């Protein structure tokens, strides 16, 4: 026969200078419970006594109530007696009353402005060392590769090429096309003012081939492939798979990093070329539409007057460099990943951010170099 749960109840009666408090019913933490202050009712008795009377099920909520009473009693110098309570309740109350144990060594409080700056500087220095180390190991690895001594498996490299190159075509194509469209549309607003509609072809062609083609392909690949490398390597690290390679005498850089960097090095220029075409197609689409109505053949002829082989080559050189950087950043973040669930996700994020940062910086450097060289 089930008992209907009865509410926690408290009956407080004042008998002279003694406050008698009868506690009964079911005390559950998820239900409302009486407060000690209610039992006091504004008075400050010299003595108080809590006694169990028809007490049903109880849990921590009862212990908290009694603890409230104790705190009051010691604050006001009153005597408190507790009678008839089950042993378990008193044990819980004792635990509640205990001061916290030895300090955990974590200071609370607001951070000062200097500590984060210091920590960030130390972290930045460590970052630079880590990147330099991976670059160095990759260089050694490449040396071994050309001497035929690397533990490099072509099947891994080809598999990555398919993943990042072939399977990236739809998204790279779409994004490049749309970027071409947007650039052409915005550009048309300007050139039409001067009656120079046709020069839209020159503008879009040059911008896409020199900058936007390689850049868009790189950014897409940073998100797709850079993050994938980081997640894969991060997971492997958490699962001790990288340790297993090392104790077998296999260099993780040879076996994991080099195939990936090589794959990107070959695929990025191809993707950049493809991205160039899609970008120019986007421009062509806007030009062919009203109000400009430039026929595609005319658009194409005009593009060829300004875009030449050196423009395409600089774009491809950039693309190959971007590919190496994405591979480097992705693998580095993966190998640095924390051995936790959040760690792998964080590694993927950092891979994308680092890749894009390196890409943009390198792009600026190349702009200066090409300007100086006259390419």
């Amino acid at each position, binding site marked *: 026969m089930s008992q209907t749960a009865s509410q926690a109840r408290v009956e407080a009666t004042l008998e002279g200078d003694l406050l008698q408090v009868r506690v009964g019913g079911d005390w559950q933490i998820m239900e409302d419970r009486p407060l000690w202050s209610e039992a006091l009712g504004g008075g400050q008795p010299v003595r108080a006594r809590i006694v169990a009377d028809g007490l049903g099920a109880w849990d921590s909520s009862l212990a908290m109530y009694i603890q409230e009473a104790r705190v009051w009693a010691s604050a006001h110098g009153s005597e408190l007696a507790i009678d008839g309570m089950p042993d378990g309740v008193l044990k819980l109350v004792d635990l509640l009353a205990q001061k916290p144990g030895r300090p955990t060594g974590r200071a609370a409080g607001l951070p000062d402005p200097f500590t984060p700056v210091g920590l960030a500087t130390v972290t930045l220095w460590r970052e630079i060392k880590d990147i330099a180390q991976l670059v160095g190991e990759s260089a050694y690895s490449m040396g071994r590769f050309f001497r035929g001594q690397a533990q490099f498996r072509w099947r891994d490299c080809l598999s990555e090429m398919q993943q990042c190159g072939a399977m990236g075509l739809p998204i790279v194509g779409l994004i490049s096309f749309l970027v071409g469209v947007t650039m052409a549309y915005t550009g048309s607003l300007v050139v039409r003012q001067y009656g120079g509609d046709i020069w839209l072809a020159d503008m879009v062609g040059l911008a896409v081939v020199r900058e936007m083609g390689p850049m868009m392909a790189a950014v897409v690949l940073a998100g797709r492939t850079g993050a994938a490398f980081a997640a894969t390597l991060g997971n*492997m690290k958490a699962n001790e798979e990288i340790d297993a390679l090392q104790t077998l*005498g296999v260099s993780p850089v040879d076996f994991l990093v080099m195939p990936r960097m090589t794959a990107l090095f070959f695929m990025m220029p191809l993707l950049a070329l493809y991205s160039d075409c899609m970008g120019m197609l986007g421009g062509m689409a806007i030009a062919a539409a009203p109000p400009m109505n430039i026929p595609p053949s005319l658009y194409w002829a005009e593009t060829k007057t300004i875009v030449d082989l050196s423009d395409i080559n600089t774009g491809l050189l950039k693309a190959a460099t971007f590919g190496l950087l994405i591979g480097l950043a992705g693998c580095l973040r993966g190998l640095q990943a924390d051995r936790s669930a959040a760690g792998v996700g964080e590694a993927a994020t950092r891979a994308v951010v680092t890749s894009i940062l390196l890409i943009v910086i390198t792009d600026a450097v190349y702009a200066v170099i090409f300007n100086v060289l006259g390419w």
Partner: protein
Amino acid sequence: MSAPGKTNPPASGFAIEVEGIECRYGDRVVLEGVSFAVKRGEIFFIIGGSGCGKSTLLRNIVGLNQPPKGAVRYFGRDFTHAGTAERKALLRTFGVLYQSGALWSSMTVRENVALPLELYTGLSRRERDELVGLKLAQVGLSGYEDYYPAEISGGMKKRAGLARALALDPAVVFFDEPSAGLDPITSLKLDDLIRQVRDTLGTTIVVVSHELASIFGIADRVIMLDRDVRGIIAEGDPRTLEQKTGDVRVREFLNRRLEPVGQEKGAPA
């Protein structure tokens, strides 16, 4: 195994010698001045409570961490201070079974076991497949060649990992907490397998573990590490160790019972 060179000390009877090793976990010194030796063909356990440095010690012995002080020798040949070529040669003399098997998740069981063969032997594909079949049969995993690690159970992953560790017929095999996550019967079967490997191949076995059942089941000799001492507090046959040692920590560990008088007030594990 080639004979040690003239500059090395003469070949000792020991498979592994660890001398005065210091192990760190980050900046913290976990073990200091630890020395012990493992005899050829014995089943040697490294035991101790949580945080005593067993796994760190293992990492230092197999070369995943470089110990700041001390040396590790395999069959008399220095491993800690060896050059790249010698180090690589010595790596091939031992195999490691990691706690979760550490199978390479993008490869099938066959490819996992075959990789050491692919890298270090000139065997043809057909010969490699034959050997893979043999190794899997040795560990009782025949028929699972084409499964991926994600498709097999934890116990099977460990067996596959063991097959991989045995691929090059190493002289020593290390086990990092082999019973972790296994039910008692699977753990017993794995212990039997370990003993079988030693009995049939004469392999030296080193196990890091805190499973009493395994310790009393198959260990020939143990060393017990302690977090506070940062070193070895007991060494010998586990079955007689309890009587020999007066150390209460050793007794408590081996009997799985806290002793009421003079209970240690250590930090909670």
